[in-house]
C-alpha cells in the first residue's frame, strides 16, 4: 500500500498556505510533518483526511484493494480535539466509536489497558485530566483497524512516560505494515521516520502566523 501526494497545495480562507508539496509513504513508513505554527500542518492533514479539498495537486492511495479505496476510508484521524463526550464514560465513548467505525481490532478494555486507563474506564470522560483524555483518544486508534494514522500533535498534553508508551504503539503499528503521517514539533521517538519540512515558502516570506483552530 502506498500513499502519494503530488504537487499538493492547500488554502485556508482564500489564502494559499502551502503549495507544491509532494511526498510518498509506503507501508511500514512514517512521515513527520514539521514546521512553525501556521505552516499548514493541520491543513495538510485535514486535506489528507478528506475534510478539506486541496487547492491543487493530486492525492492517491494505491494498493488498498476493495477494502481501502481511498485515504478517507483507510485513515484514523486524531485531531486537536479528542472526539469524546464528557457526559459519557470512557468505555461508553470507546464502545460507540468501535461500533461506528467498524473493523473492530482490540477490545475496549484491552485498548484501555494499553494506554494505562484500565482503572478509570468507568468514569465519565469529563472527570479526566488533559493527558488522560488524550490517552483515551489514542485508545480510539486501537479499537478499530485502519492502516493509515493521521495524527495532529498527538502527544499534546502527554507526560514523558505516556509519550514513550505511545511511541511504542506507533512502532507496533508500523511493524504491522501501517502508515503514519504525524504533524508535530516535538520528537515522537520514531527512529528512521522521514521528515517533511513545511513553512519554507518559495516567495521568501515567512509563513503567516495563524493560531491553530
Amino acid at each position, binding site marked *: 500500500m502506498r500513499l502519494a501526494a503530488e504537487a499538493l497545495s492547500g488554502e485556508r480562507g482564500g489564502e494559499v498556505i502551502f503549495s507544491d508539496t509532494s511526498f510518498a509513504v509506503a507501508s511500514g513508513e512514517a512521515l513527520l510533518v514539521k514546521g512553525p505554527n501556521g505552516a499548514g500542518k493541520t491543513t495538510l492533514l485535514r486535506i489528507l483526511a478528506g*475534510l478539506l479539498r486541496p487547492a491543487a495537486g493530486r492525492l492517491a492511495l494505491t494498493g488498498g484493494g476493495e477494502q481501502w479505496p481511498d485515504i478517507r476510508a483507510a485513515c484514523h484521524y486524531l485531531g486537536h480535539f479528542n472526539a469524546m*463526550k464528557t457526559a*459519557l464514560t470512557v468505555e461508553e465513548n470507546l464502545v460507540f466509536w468501535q461500533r461506528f467505525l467498524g473493523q473492530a481490532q482490540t477490545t475496549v478494555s484491552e485498548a484501555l489497558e494499553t494506554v494505562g486507563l484500565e482503572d478509570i474506564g468507568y468514569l465519565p470522560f469529563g472527570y479526566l485530566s488533559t493527558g488522560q483524555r488524550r490517552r483515551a483518544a489514542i485508545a480510539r486508534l486501537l479499537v478499530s483497524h485502519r492502516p493509515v494514522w493521521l495524527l495532529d500533535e498527538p502527544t499534546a498534553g502527554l507526560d514523558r512516560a505516556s509519550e514513550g508508551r505511545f511511541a511504542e504503539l506507533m512502532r507496533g503499528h508500523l511493524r504491522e505494515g501501517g502508515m503514519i503521517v504525524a504533524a508535530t514539533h516535538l520528537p515522537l521517538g520514531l527512529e528512521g521516520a522521514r521528515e517533511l519540512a513545511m513553512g519554507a515558502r518559495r516567495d521568501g516570506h515567512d509563513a503567516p502566523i495563524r493560531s491553530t483552530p
Partner: protein
Amino acid sequence: MLALYVREVRLGIRAGSGALTGVLFFLAVVAVIPFGVGPDLNLLARIGPAILWIGALLASLLGLERLFQADREDGSLDLMLIADGRHMLALTVFVKCLAHWTANVLPLVAVAPLLGLFMNMPPAGLAAATLTLLVGTPAITFIGAVGAALVVALPRGGLLVSVLILPLSIPVLIFGVAASRGAVAEPDPFLPAFLILLALTLFFAVIGPAAAALALRNAD
C-alpha cells in the same frame, strides 16, 4: 447506526436538561397566552390547537443549534465526515435527527394533551392535536437540521437557526393546525390535511438530511 442512535439519546437524557428546558418553554408559552387574550374559555378552545402548535414549534427550535455544534466542538463531527464512505453522511444526519426528536421533541408531544386541557379543548380535539404533533414535529426537526448545519461554524448561531427555519416550517404549521381543527369543527375534514402533513414529514425526512449533509461537508 443503532450505536449512534443510542449514544445520541443517552447524551440527550444525561447531559443536562435539554428536554426539560424544552418542555418548560412549551409550558410557559402556552401558559402566558391566556394572560394576553383573557380567560374566555370558548375563545381559548377555539385557538387552542394553534397555540399548542406554535408553542411546540418554538420549543422544538430551542436545542436545535447544538445538534451539530456540540459534535464540531469536540471533534466528533470530523470523524463522522471521514466515515462518510462507511456510513453515508445523510444517513448519519438522519439518525441524529431521530435521536434529537426522541430525546427533545417527543416529551413535548407527551405534555401536549395536558396543555390542551388548560386551553379547554374537547377530548377529540386533544387527541387530534397530539396526533398531528406526533406526525408533524419530525418534519420541523428535519428542516431544523439544515439550519443547524448551515450555522454550525458560527459561534452564536442559535437565533439565526430560528430565523432561517421558521419560514420553512410554515407549511407544517398550516397543515398541522388545519388537521387538528378539522377533527373538531364539523365542515372541515381531518384526513386530507393530516395526509398532507404526513407527506410533508416524509418529504423533509429525505430532503433535510441530504441538504444538511451537503452543508456540513462545505462548512469547513
